[in-house]
């Protein structure tokens, strides 16, 4: 499994990296722009990400914009809904409108920081990601 993390806060980034590295090969980016670029590169190389974790408040391109970019890239590459990457927003914002907006734009999960790692694993499984097998 391959996971992409976009997170500008150093501590949160390291935390997520440490947590998710147990289950997958993890790449880390520091803002939305870099994340979208990494995602596009992976699509071109044919080594797609299974899961993308996006912080919302990030410089250059925020998580919501990055989500939109990722979904439109997938469309360009002709990837249908069922096989597209799962996206979980990881953020300290839990404003109801923000959550609604993110879901409407096509993320599968929304996790409020500090991340509840047990539940995070639960939803990864529900999303069809393999957390028991080999990385």
């Amino acid at each position, binding site marked *: 499994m391959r996971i992409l993390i976009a997170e500008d*806060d150093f501590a*949160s980034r390291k935390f997520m990296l440490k947590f998710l590295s147990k289950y997958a090969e993890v790449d880390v980016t520091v803002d939305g722009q870099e994340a979208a670029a990494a995602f596009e590169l992976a699509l071109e190389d044919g080594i797609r990400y299974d899961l993308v974790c996006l912080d919302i408040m990030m410089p250059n391109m925020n998580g919501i914009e990055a989500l939109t970019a990722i979904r439109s890239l997938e469309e360009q590459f002709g990837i249908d809904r*069922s096989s597209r990457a799962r996206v979980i927003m990881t953020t300290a*914002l*839990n404003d109801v409108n923000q*959550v609604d907006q993110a879901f409407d734009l096509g993320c599968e999960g*929304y996790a409020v*920081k*500090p991340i509840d790692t047990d539940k995070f694993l639960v*939803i990864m499984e529900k999303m069809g990601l393999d957390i028991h097998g080999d990385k």
Partner: protein
Amino acid sequence: MDNMTANSDPMMEIFLEECGDLVTQYETYLHMAGEKKEYDLTLINEIFRITHTLKADATMMLFECVAVPTRAFERLLYFYRDECSIVNFDEFSDMLTRLIDYVKSEVQSILNGEAADTDGDELKQEFLDYRDKLASGISVEQVENVEKKAKFEIQDEPMRFYIGSATDASPEKKSTKTAKKKTAAPKTKPAQVKDNAAEEIKKDAVGQKSAKSSETAGASELSGIDFETSLRDEQPEDEKQKDRSSSEITWLKDKSSITGDDLEKLYNLVTSLGGVEERMMARFGKEYDRYADVFGEFHEINIALLDWITQASTVPMGHISPKLHKTVSEMNTRLERKCGLVIEGESVLIDRTWMDKISGALVHMLRNSIDHGIESKEKRKILGKPAEGLIKVAYSQTEREFIIELSDDGSGIDVENLRKRALERGVYEAEFAETPEEIMELMFIPGVSTHEKEGIYSGRGVGMDVVKHNIEELGGNISVKSEIGKGTVFTVSIPLKSGTNGEEESLYEDFDSRR
């Protein structure tokens, strides 16, 4: 202020509220079916819609104990909707009732802060067994057809999961990232003043150049609560997140939500800070001006804290205005009515814990008033009333009571008619009710409706009894005055608890005027 909802996750609040709404709708349809002793396709479709929403909501909130049986119930409904149109009234009513009771009790457990004591598997199995029974009554082809259609629809549903913050009770999750960075700042350096908590707070306070807005108030509040953590903080940076969730001030430890008692303790702590400030002022006397900048910050943080805690434990009634307006416009569309809504006293603050019950009661009352109170456009024209009906909701507060007045300019309630219908329903009390006031009381008895013709939304006798129940749970009461042809006024009054509402307000003002 959205980020000030202190004691629980806003998504969770909305979910629980919606659960309540959906259960009420279930009950309404259950009752409607009871009148005719059958479930027609319209009813099944409505019940399907509610079930679908409930399932999606529960799944999203990882509320599996509700999602599991609801999913099974939905599978059952697919059969009715697509193939098996004849519903066994008694059996289906029984199952719907069990689902309703189950959801109610699970929601109650959540509200009480208890963990769900069941996974819902038993109920799920029951629904599935019944579904199998239905399936055995029709051809294999038909069963396949239903399954295929269901599978197709389920596949198409968007995948949505929400995880609340790991420290659910902590106000930290409301803080913005900036706030978080601010609190994190002193931790990155080794704490030099480990044994002096006060020093640490001061340092933090000085570090914060402005504590003016409520957002930064959240931050200063955090630094206050967090100092224990910062003093002990010697873990590597990446452990911080984990550490935060496990270390709160002692009495906040291991709580899934902040209770009213906690808030009161917090409130007392915060007000005692005000006392300390006063003593410092007195002691420093003329010197005070020399340290004006530091004292100024201290004062601002004090105020911000007090502001935060007031916000956390109370909420302005205006909070539910959008919901009320939405109810009215929905009713207008569905019933082809024209009715305006005026809300007065939106700034009146009430105890946060009351909100759910009050909002539920108000929505019921609004629906009732529009459905039965406000006449059709045509009828209003004939009566010489303005085409647009008007409902007014006014909140007010005296020293002792919180009052809601809901008035409409509709047809009013005919007491004789009300009594007649109560008698028809075999309501025992109706035989003894004599004065108009006594007769009015009858409408709060389960099963008694204020109107002969039953609308889509209300008037099936469910509703007003629920309203009364909600209000009584808060220790309040409800009364009705009505004049035929002129309208009806409902008055709800709820006695205030000590230690909440008005008090904080006055203290806050007092606090502020000292500067």
